Structure formats: structure tokens, C-alpha cells
């Protein structure tokens, strides 16, 4: 029987990697991700997880070691956050371009300077274009389920891409939640051992990571784009299969009380649960406000997003990262661009908030909605609003 336990979500992530029977974990400590790799180290030390644990000397080496172990066909897991993700930056591109399905949990964190170990999504947005499949989860159960799904999605021979599972630093990574862990036998059925089609091995010598002249580089990059785009089918299939086996269903775009809502909020990650509380309150007051949450960030779910917001008049997007000197938050930019070609589309209003661990309460979301509606009606001379900041 699957059992439900109260557990810190970071530890639950490690337990999920154990259920996935990861072969190699290469990791470096960084707040707020550390509990994940600490627990993995514990599991390996106690013989509960038969894996090689490589305690590397930096995140750059963590991801580099992951490239090596994945290239020989080992199921590979790591976790990081904030500065660690940025230090990995160039290595992330290699993982996706070389088709190495590493799975990484990212406990999203703000970027220095000033130093902040607290949560926001600046780290993710800086690695948006690295070619990884990227998922945002909002609670402990979803985290565990999607770490398992991440292995299956990435390792599918039609995909072979690395996957990031984003969970909010502290707000999700450090909370204790009730999580239902599936039975090992069920997981094994869902996730058979990794079989990399072209591993590095002396029996069949391969050259991996050759360089490309201009005459070939564009073709390689196009192939990568086609591949990531096509991965969406497999992602949907994977979630479908997961739903059948475990009874929990996931989709690229989550809709919450949004069907008749004229005003929609759009969020990513754990703040969505607070936004739901705000939506409940506002609907109780008879206001037509709903919520849309992106679970799948890459490949971007264009069709599902358009479908989800097509009847709304105002769409208020909350970003937890700033594109300095630009159009506001990266999420808002992308949403606007996804809707630009639509004949009927909501007005898109951008907010940036919740930076560096600054909380947004249900009342805060109501404030954002009110201000958003006001801007939609009266217009604004600013490209975006920064919420909850002292002048």
C-alpha cells in the first residue's frame, strides 16, 4: 500500500529520487536546496539507495559530472538553487544539446547582489533558454509525482532531454506536508530502468560533443527545437499514464475557478496556492476572478494557455523575476507574445512581486487584482507594476 506521511518537501524530493532508483547523484550544497542532497547522501550512506554519490566541489562540476554519468547511461539526479543554477549555466546548454536526460530539482532562489537565500524565480528565468524541459510544482505531492514523471519524460527515447522540476525555495522546499508515496513496485512499472540508446562504451566507440562549423550548427539547433517541441506529446502521455496508475492528474496549464471569470490571475509555482485562497474569497464576494497556473514552462504550452484565457477580459500576470530595463517579468512577456496573434484576447497586465522571499498574502493578491483591473480600465504609463515595494 502506498503510504501517506508528513515530510519536509526537500526530503520528499530525495525520497522520490530514491523511488526512481537513481544511479548517480552529483551535488553541491546550496540553500535552500541543501536538505535534498543531504537526505540523498543519508539514503546512500544507509544503503537504502544504491547510487554513486559524488560530492563535487562546485555546481559547475555537479552538472558536468552529471553529463558524464548520463553519457554512460546512468540515471542521474541533482539539485540546486539560485547562484548554483547560475554557476551551472553553460553546462545546462550542453546537457540538452547532447541529449542527456539528467533530472534536476531546483529550489528557486533569488540572485545576488544583495545576497538573498530566499525564494523567487530569478534563477529559473536566467536559464529559460537552455533547452531543458521545465516544470513548476506547487505542493509536496506534486513535487514527488513530477520528479518521478521527470525521469520518465526525459528518458523517453523520443525525447532524451534533461528536465528541471522547480519548487519554491523555503515556501515549498522547507515546509512539512502530507505526501502519498507510491509503492516501489508501482513506480518500477511506471519507470523502467534507464536504457540510453547511445552510451559511451568501448564496445561501440562514439564521438560525443564534436564541434560544428556554421554549415551545420543551425541544423543542429533546429533539430533541438523540433525535439523539445515534440516532447510535449510525450509529456502529456506521461502525465496521462501517471494519472491512470496513481490517480493524480497533471496538465500543462492548471485552471482554478477560471471558467466564467472575466478577470484571471496567472502564476507559476507555490504562490498559486495562496492565489487560490484569494480567488476563493473574491468569488465568495461575487467577483468573477479566477486563476490560471503554468505547470509546464518549457516547452511553452501555447495552445493550452490560449484556450484557458480566451474568454477573459483581463489577465494579470505575476512574475517573481525582473527583466531589468525591459518589458517587466519574463512570464508576462511570453504570455503577451503568445496571445498577440489572437483575435480575441484579454488585456495583459504585468506585475512583479514576491522577490527575494517577500511574501504575497491572499490580501496582497486581491490588491494586485484590484490594481490590475484599474490599469486595464484606465491605462498606465508604466510597462509593469512592482507590487508591495516601499517607494
Amino acid at each position: 500500500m502506498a503510504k501517506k506521511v508528513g515530510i519536509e518537501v526537500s526530503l520528499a524530493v530525495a525520497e522520490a529520487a530514491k523511488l526512481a532508483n537513481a544511479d548517480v547523484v552529483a551535488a553541491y550544497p546550496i540553500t535552500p536546496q541543501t536538505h535534498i542532497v543531504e537526505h540523498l547522501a543519508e539514503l546512500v550512506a544507509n544503503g537504502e539507495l544504491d547510487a554513486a554519490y559524488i560530492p563535487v566541489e562546485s555546481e559547475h562540476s555537479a552538472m558536468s559530472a552529471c553529463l558524464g554519468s548520463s553519457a554512460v547511461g546512468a540515471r542521474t539526479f541533482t539539485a540546486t538553487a539560485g547562484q548554483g543554477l547560475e554557476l551551472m549555466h553553460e553546462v545546462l546548454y550542453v546537457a540538452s544539446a547532447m541529449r542527456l536526460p539528467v533530472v534536476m530539482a531546483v529550489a528557486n532562489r533569488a540572485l545576488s547582489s544583495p545576497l538573498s537565500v530566499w525564494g523567487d524565480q530569478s534563477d529559473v528565468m536566467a536559464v529559460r533558454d537552455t533547452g531543458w524541459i521545465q516544470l513548476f510544482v506547487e505542493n509536496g505531492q506534486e513535487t514527488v509525482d513530477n520528479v518521478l514523471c521527470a525521469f520518465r519524460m526525459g528518458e523517453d527515447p523520443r525525447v532524451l532531454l534533461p528536465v528541471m522540476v522547480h519548487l519554491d525555495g523555503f515556501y515549498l522546499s522547507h515546509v512539512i506536508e502530507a505526501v502519498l508515496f507510491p509503492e516501489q513496485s508501482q513506480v518500477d512499472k511506471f519507470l523502467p530502468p534507464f536504457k540510453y540508446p547511445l552510451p559511451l562504451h568501448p564496445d561501440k566507440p562514439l564521438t560525443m560533443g564534436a564541434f560544428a562549423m556554421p554549415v551545420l550548427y543551425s541544423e543542429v539547433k533546429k533539430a533541438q527545437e523540433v525535439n523539445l517541441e515534440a516532447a510535449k506529446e510525450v509529456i502529456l502521455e506521461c502525465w496521462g499514464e501517471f494519472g491512470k496508475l496513481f490517480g493524480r492528474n497533471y496538465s500543462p496549464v492548471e485552471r482554478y475557478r477560471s471558467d466564467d471569470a472575466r478577470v484571471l490571475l496567472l502564476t507559476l509555482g507555490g504562490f498559486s496556492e495562496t492565489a487560490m485562497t484569494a480567488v476563493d474569497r473574491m468569488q465568495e464576494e461575487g467577483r468573477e476572478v479566477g486563476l490560471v497556473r503554468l505547470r509546464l514552462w518549457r516547452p511553452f504550452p501555447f495552445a493550452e494557455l490560449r484556450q484557458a484565457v480566451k474568454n477573459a477580459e483581463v489577465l494579470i500576470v505575476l512574475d517573481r523575476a525582473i527583466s531589468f530595463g525591459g518589458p517587466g517579468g519574463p512570464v508576462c512577456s511570453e504570455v503577451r507574445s503568445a496571445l498577440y496573434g489572437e483575435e480575441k484576447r484579454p488585456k495583459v497586465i504585468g506585475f512583479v512581486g514576491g522577490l527575494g522571499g517577500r511574501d504575497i498574502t491572499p490580501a496582497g493578491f486581491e490588491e494586485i487584482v484590484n490594481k490590475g483591473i484599474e490599469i486595464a480600465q484606465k491605462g498606465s504609463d508604466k510597462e509593469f507594476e512592482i507590487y508591495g515595494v516601499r517607494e
Partner: protein
Amino acid sequence: MESYAVYVPRLVTKKENFAPGHRACIGCGEALAVRLACKALGQSVIIANATGCMEIVSSPLPYTSWRVPWIHTLFENTAAVASGIEAGLKIMMKKGRIAQKEIKVVAMAGDGGTSDIGLQALSGAMERGHNFLYLCFDNEAYMNTGIQRSSSTPFGAATTTSPAGKVSIGQVSWKKNMPAIAAAHDIPYVATACPSYPFDLMAKVAKGAAIQGPAYIQILSPCPTGWRFATNLSVRIGRLAVETGMFPLYEVENGTYKLTLDFPKLRPVADYMKLQGRFRHLPEEIVKQIQQRLEKEYAKLKEKAR
């Protein structure tokens, strides 16, 4: 002395795992060194190669010179990639996911990829004790990007970023002692080699590959393009580097130093320098200063090897 003589007939495998047709410059000492190393390594290896000359000349898509499994990812991370390969193979064999087999993991990089940008990853991999062989092909500058100085460039050498000028003699720092840094990690095997001594090079590579645990070999790779000497002189230049004490050949086995070639008296360094454009600008007093330093360093090395 047999392994140091070139003209003694002996059996060496004809099998080339580093195939001809690559795009190295004429007279490239590094390509020769890689070729010899690959002969010594045999088939059962996986090579992780850093960005650099050898990576570029050997792997233009869709061609490859590698007849053994080979991976290139980035510049500074080769030792970390090798760590992952080694750990991955080991656990997969333990779990029965792949057949048990002796597979040596070999990391290759240039001197910049080793002693500058890749030093941290290398130090980490040596400290963790991975079972791998690291080969540093030392041509004493960033040759792939056009002869920029590295921390392995010798004192006085002119490079494009340490040019000799009216008020500069070129490189103003002494060559970083990378083998000593490797040895300070207390790894089982450290050695220096040079393709001008091909049998010695092959023997050291084979020895390093056979050892359990980290092994580090620094291979002086004369570069006609970057050092500015005639392309037919690569082997001779390598010999002169060894004979003048510019690049002494030695091994450090479990902390014990052993000179491979012990010269009672070093040949004057001017013999080595005068053949190379990179040293041509140096006034006599600087050459003298270098000579003194070499003698001092060589004496220190001899002392360690006593």
C-alpha cells in the same frame, strides 16, 4: 636507458586509436603525444576531452579522429565529466546494468584547461579519488585561441597577451608547477613526459592507466606555431627542453620522486631558447637569470628524488 632512445627497434602496436586525417598544424608535438598516448591506452578506455587544440582538430562534425569512445563538453570541466563517467560506470557494473569490464577513464586537456580554468575541477576529482588518468598536454599557452599566455607559459616567453615590448620582456611570471600541485593531492601517480621520448611517454601513460586511483601526467607538447620554430624541429625541441632542465622528466609514485633522466650537468638553456621565436627578444642577462633559476629548480628536484 632503452626507453629513452628513439633509434632502438622495438615492437609498438600499429593500431592507431587517434586516427590520421585530423587538422593539427604541421609538426604538432601535441598530436604526436596524443597519438602515442592512445597507442599506450588501447581500446578499453573512455576519453573526456576539454575544449582546446586537440578537441578542435579531431572532431569537426561529421568527422572524428577518435576510434575510442570520446566526449567533449566544455573547457574547464573535463575532470568533473570524467568523475561522472567513472562513478557512472562503477555503479552500473555494481548494479548489473552493464557487464563487468575494466574500462579506464581518461581526461585530456591542455595547459590552460588544466592549470588555469580547469584547476578547480581537477583538484576536486583528484581529492575525491576517482579512478582516472588525467593527461595534460602542455604547449605552454592558449594555442587554440591564438597563443595567449597561460600560467604554464615559461618566464620570458612572448605570447599575444604577454608580448615582448619596449618595457616588457614578455611573460613575467614563472611556469606554474602543476605536477607539484597534483602531487600535493597525495595521489598514487604523477609523472612528466614528452613525445620526444616516445617509449618513456607510452610507458608512463600505460603505468598511469593501470594504477587504481587518480593519476596525473603532464606532457610537454612542443608547438611550432606558438613557440615559433621550424616545423621539423618539434622532437629536437622537446629533447632540448628536457636536457636543459626546462622540462625535467620524472615520476612521483606514492609521494616518492624519481628522476627519469638524471643529468649530471644541464645543457645551457640558450641552446633551447635560441631555436624559438618566443624567446628571441630576451637579452643575455634574462637568459642568465633563467639559467640560474633552472639550475636551482633542478637541484631541488634532484634533492626530492634522492
